[in-house]
């Protein structure tokens, strides 16, 4: 009976997530129609269908046309793009989700991602003459260690001084930008480059699994997919996972039960940073191939969306990462074919989150029953007091 209850609340959550995505697409369509006079010069009530079809084609290679009706498969480029885009989202989402489980809101995945990228690039440049089998793993390890170190800092500050991780990680994101700017325009700057950037990662470039120029499937994708069951197992089958859950649900009870909340906070934030750093390393070694001084990316912020979409569950995060990857992969074609700027994806992302948070709207629209009282909901439980709350003892 209990299993039925649980699965009902799970079904409810899935329905809410699906409903939120659907409503966000509707809001996106309304925005497109309302702004169509500026985009196309006249009010176009069907701009949204054009845009969404282009998005679908760009993300999956499935081209649908209505007049006359046809369905075509245009090749694997779209799927490859989606997988490649999803890779850092999945790892970043796991990073943020892991934090949620311990009651920590790691807004710093962005900074940890950047530091991971920097770490990987430094190692890659140092290993320029090494064979790939050595350079790739070492550069990845350098990336994930750099990320872990950058996650360790807010974890340590939270555990031992009580400084709230949300504010500290926001600050560290900006500090990371400055560190990269300094490192890349100074010591790491490639000679002869027209703008401040490092030299290419060379031997540490991730091996390519499939694809053609511009749409290459690098081997980092495997790492991201493999990380999902690993994190799941740690969270739900190991004693450490139980400790993380306990600290997240009730740090005082954890301490009274003989666990070490401070250590766990530091450990979880470091592990979270490790995953985000790994994402950064993979992105540099597999996609970007060099680090510019002004590295424009929002992967670490998007990871928050992914984690919330997946409700901090690793399998949910896999889905959330693939969804956001698909949206991002399809967006350029949407801009080309329908003239709708890729920034539409940012709006969609935010609106999905809005409906997830305001789930009462979704429940009302789709007649989904209210969640059972007492069920843990990541969307409502991560904020504690901040700005000088007393440190967790023990």
């Amino acid at each position, binding site marked *: 009976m209990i299993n039925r209850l649980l699965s009902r609340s799970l079904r409810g959550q899935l329905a809410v997530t699906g409903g939120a995505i659907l409503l966000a697409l509707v809001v996106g369509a309304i925005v497109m129609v309302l702004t169509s006079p500026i985009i196309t010069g006249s009010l176009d009530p069907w701009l949204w269908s054009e845009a969404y079809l282009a998005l679908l084609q760009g993300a999956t290679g499935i081209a649908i046309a209505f007049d006359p009706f046809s369905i075509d498969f245009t090749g694997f480029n779209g799927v490859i793009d989606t997988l490649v885009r999803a890779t850092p989202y999945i790892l970043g989402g796991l990073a943020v989700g892991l934090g949620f489980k311990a009651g920590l809101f790691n807004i710093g995945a962005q900074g940890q991602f950047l530091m991971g990228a920097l770490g990987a690039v430094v190692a890659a440049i140092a290993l320029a003459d090494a064979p790939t089998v050595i350079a790739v793993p070492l550069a990845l390890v350098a990336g994930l260690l750099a990320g872990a170190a950058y996650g360790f800092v807010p974890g340590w500050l939270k555990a031992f001084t009580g400084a709230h991780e949300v504010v500290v990680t926001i600050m560290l994101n900006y500090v990371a930008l400055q560190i990269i700017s300094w490192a890349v325009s100074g010591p790491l700057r490639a000679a002869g480059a027209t703008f401040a950037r490092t030299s290419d990662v060379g031997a540490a470039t991730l091996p390519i699994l499939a694809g053609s120029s511009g749409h290459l499937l690098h081997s980092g994708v495997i790492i991201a997919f493999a990380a999902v069951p690993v994190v799941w197992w740690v969270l739900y089958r*190991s*004693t450490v996972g*139980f400790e993380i859950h*306990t600290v997240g*649900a009730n740090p005082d009870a954890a301490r*009274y039960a*003989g666990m070490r909340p401070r250590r766990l906070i530091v450990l979880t934030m470091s592990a979270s940073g490790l995953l985000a750093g790994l994402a950064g390393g993979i992105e540099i070694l597999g996609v970007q191939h060099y680090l510019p001084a002004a590295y424009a990316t929002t992967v670490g912020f998007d990871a928050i969306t992914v984690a919330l979409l997946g409700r901090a569950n690793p399998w949910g995060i896999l889905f959330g990462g693939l969804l956001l990857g698909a949206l991002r992969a399809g967006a350029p074609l949407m801009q080309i074919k329908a003239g709708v700027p890729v920034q539409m994806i940012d709006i969609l992302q935010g609106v999905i989150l809005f409906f997830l948070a305001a789930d009462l709207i979704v429940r009302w629209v789709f007649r989904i029953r209210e969640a059972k009282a*007492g069920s843990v909901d990541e969307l409502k439980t991560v904020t504690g007091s901040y700005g000088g709350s007393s440190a967790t003892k023990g």
Partner: protein
Amino acid sequence: MTAPTPDKSAARIAAPALEMRGITKRYPGVVANDSIDLEVRPGEIHALLGENGAGKSTLMNVLYGLARPDEGQILLDGEVIDIEGPTDAIDRGISMVHQHFMLVPVLTVADNVLLGKEAMRGRLFLDQGEARRRIKELGERFGFELDPDAKVGDLSVGWQQRVEILKALYRDARILVLDEPTAVLTPQETVEIFTVLRRLAAEGHSIIFISHKLYEVLEIADHITVIRRGKVVGSRIPGETNEEDLAELMVGHEVQLTVDRGESHPAETMLRVQDLRVRSDRGGDIVNGVSFDVRAGEILGVAGVAGNGQDELVEAIMGLRQPSGGSITLDGSDVTHDRPRDLHEKQVAFVPADRHRFGLVLSFPLTDNVVLTDYYMEPYSRGVVRDEDAIAKRADEAIELYDVRTPSPTVTAGTLSGGNQQKLIVAREFDRDLKLLVLDQPTRGLDVGSIEFIHKQIIKKRDAGPAVLLVSAELDEVLEISDRIAVMYRGKVVAIVDGRTANKEAVGLLMATGGKGGSSASPPETAS
């Protein structure tokens, strides 16, 4: 106002100042109030007696506009009124002193008292001078003077309660509701607050006094209404009833007011605390050189007013707080700097004071809560891999053995009643071989049945061998089951007395004054 005569017969004749008729309040799954009637006359101290969870607080929340009744009427001076919120209640002269004080610690006494009904200079600004003047005036009138500029957070609990009463008086309260006002007070402070209440009643105020303590109700009330499971089950006049009668009404069956603690057979010294010093969060030693022994097979009760160092003492013994000096010895070996887990592995068990905050993870199922301290050990895990089957089996056993009432071991701990939550903790902590059992407020907020069950379990466990250290703010509890009683006052053990011969008033005096009052509870043993 009516004539200021505290004469009880006169009070009974006067027309009721407040009537509540047929109040029903339902919450999902429970009927908190089931058609309750209540009449309170001017100048009367009316006690509302009932167990925890009987529905007293709900009824008062209805009266105060914090909860809306599903059915029923409230009449003030014979007129039906509608109370939509606290503002309505206050405007009509109904004020409430909540069990957990509704004071803002960072604000001053004057700010707290005037909050919501401020003295103004112009439309925007506060008139601080006028505020001070009013506080002084009220204090003089009712016989307790407060410094209007003192920060409330710095005041003692007893004085904070006076601020709460002042708040009510400032709002011209005619009907004053006090929710368990003595729960946090020493016997002496209780006497003082009773004096204040009698004075208020004499001036014509009606007082509703909520309590579950029988002797208190008999002492202070003019009239007693007893509530059980949301219903009024009886109405009594103090002169015509006694504790046994009230207890039976309150609980619904005949109760044994005291558990038979039996003979204890103390053996070797199990816990030795020597010259222990512990710093508080604010700095400074709040435990200031405490020494005592607890022998195997005996219960040492620690009595004291909350805030005299008991919490820190327990935390230090359990490894939750580092002592700043002294030593703790368990069965001959030093454990002063042990961590909670070390102690757990050395057969020390602990029932913490606040089961919601410290004892359980309310969002976890019972299964996980049962192994909260053992989850990492065989058979519940092998290496770092959890064994769900072993955990489920353990939960079934614990639930069976300690009579935890639950639909299933997989529901969350938060869905259980307080008594069953505490039984779950007791099951987790008691059900193994122990050297030392530390209990901090083990029955706080529980119903009589659960209290009795837990007291019996404690005595049973004592007879099985371990040393038991019982810390409780309920002096009655300490007196009832302890073999010896240590009284803590300002971070020191001021006396250790025999639990069977101790006299309540004398222990209360020790708690309040540290023994400087002169009298002694019973021939004090040496505080070793």
